[in-house]
């Protein structure tokens, strides 16, 4: 319970407004994507959005909820965009559709719709896809593919065979595989020196996408759409573990900056762990949630079998949210200690 006295400042915080700002914050990342890989990712975004809106409308109709109110709030669009950006950009269209349907129908509406879902729908989609189609989900195109837009479209819509030239491992995955194959004889520095895959900080090109997400996320923070707790705790969790292991053995563990600008770290930090529905609500809880998700993401990414760990880390922490929230209730104003 919070007591405060009027007069209050009115603030326009409708769901629609928040969601539109989140969508706007994703634009720099999308721009970086287009600059790197061409406009194919826009096609994925359109496919995902159309599918999400259709699924949302169908579920709302089935559940007898007001269509216009919920369809217009943009929450389905945010889920769709996050899925399209988290999936490999040249994934076949049906993979995106399966992910979006799973996210909207099962992860969102079967749990009660907007504001009721215990799990982050976009991460559910990612987990479902990577568990079911690990090969397709690990095919990330190298950034200098000179394939034209038409070739990319053919790939997305299954009109062309999926040849290896169009698909490589993610920089994270490539590093992990190389280290494993080297069995201790290959150092990180040597692998990262290969400039066809790696750039200044992390994966060549992909580091710019990550930086663009960071930019969008900082803007969201500045606009007070998200609080700083969860994202910075998440980044801190990854950086702390990555830093400790890197200091201990720099030959076998990549430096913290590499991990911050690789894979889903930035997208996860500012757009996933900040989810107001499936994340913690108390400030202290957000810190715990973000930090633990970061640590788990790092551990899964480095020691696990999957190319990236953000999705599983967030889903595992989503289960813990009620418990964390229970133990981190802030004391009532004016009272000392426990509420």
């Amino acid at each position, binding site marked *: 319970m919070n007591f405060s006295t009027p007069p209050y400042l009115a603030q326009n915080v409708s769901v629609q407004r928040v969601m539109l700002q989140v969508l706007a914050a994703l634009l720099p990342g999308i721009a970086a994507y287009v600059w790197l890989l061409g406009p194919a990712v826009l096609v994925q975004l359109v496919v995902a959005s159309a599918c999400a809106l259709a699924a949302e409308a169908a579920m709302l109709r089935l559940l007898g909820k007001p269509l216009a109110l919920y369809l217009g709030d943009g929450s389905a669009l945010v889920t769709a965009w996050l899925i399209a950006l988290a999936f490999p950009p040249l994934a076949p269209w049906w993979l995106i559709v*399966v992910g979006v349907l799973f996210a909207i129908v*099962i992860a969102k509406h*079967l749990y009660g719709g907007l504001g009721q879902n215990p799990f982050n729908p976009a991460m559910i989609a990612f987990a*479902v896809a990577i*568990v*079911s*189609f690990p090969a*397709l989900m690990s095919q990330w195109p190298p950034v200098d593919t000179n394939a034209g837009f038409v070739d990319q479209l053919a790939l997305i819509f299954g009109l062309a065979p999926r040849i290896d030239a169009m698909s490589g491992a993610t920089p994270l995955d490539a590093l992990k595989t190389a280290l494993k194959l080297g069995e201790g004889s290959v150092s990180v520095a040597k692998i990262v020196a290969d400039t066809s895959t790696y750039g200044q900080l992390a994966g060549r090109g992909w580091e710019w996408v990550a930086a663009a997400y960071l930019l969008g996320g900082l803007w969201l923070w500045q606009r007070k759409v998200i609080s700083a707790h969860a994202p910075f705790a998440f980044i801190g969790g990854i950086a702390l573990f990555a830093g400790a292991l890197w200091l201990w053995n720099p030959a076998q563990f990549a430096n913290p900056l590499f991990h911050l600008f690789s894979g889903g770290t930035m997208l996860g930090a500012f757009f996933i762990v900040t989810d107001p529905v499936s994340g913690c609500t108390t400030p202290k809880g957000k810190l715990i949630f973000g930090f633990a998700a970061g640590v788990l993401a790092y551990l899964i990414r480095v020691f696990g079998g999957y190319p990236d760990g953000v999705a599983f880390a967030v889903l595992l922490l989503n289960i813990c949210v009620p418990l964390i929230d229970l133990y981190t209730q802030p004391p009532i104003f004016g009272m000392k200690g426990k509420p």
Partner: protein
Amino acid sequence: MTREEFRQIAANGVWRQNTSIVQILGLCPLLAVTTNLVNGAMLSLATILVMAISGAAVASLRYLIPHEIRIPVFILIVAALVTVVDLLFNANLHQLYLVLGIFIPLIVTNCIVLARVEAYANKNPPLQSAADGIFMGVGMLWTLSLLGGLRELIGRGTLFSGIDMVFPGLHPLQILPADYPGLLLAMLPPGAFILLGCLIAWKNWIESRAAARSRRRPPEPATAAGCH
């Protein structure tokens, strides 16, 4: 056993107190075995056999079994029957026996069997108890077959895979096109949970529609308490 009594037992077992979607008992074999239709159906058939005979046996002995140690006695009876079924499978359906593996011996610990013995056979005459065992098993049979079929269809695009282990002349059906990639999730335990949830929702939906249609329906009997 009157006709009405028989009808009640059948309705309870097959639908109203369905083991898998109402009582939600025996989830372990349900998750592990229903990766295809044949496995689910065959394990259910084995369970039906055990439940029918154990129901009749316990009901016949119900005045002789000391109340204080009834559970160990029930377990012994069930275990003896399961051993018979286990040996039967091993001898006649050896391939399938290898596939089902530990889940045939585990019928002993399946709480559906113990729950029906304790809740029904211990208090009712042998004939009714045997019927109860059979119909509870039939409820499990259709649910596990449906679940197995759905998982198989979504996960691999086939139906009746492994049928050749039961009837050597038959072949599995390829329902979806051969290049169907298969949603592996449906074959994994989470997929079983999600589909089971959908089945439960479907049953509740049918019930609520039926209830809405006839408002003056007698109240539902309370479901048996779970044993886990």
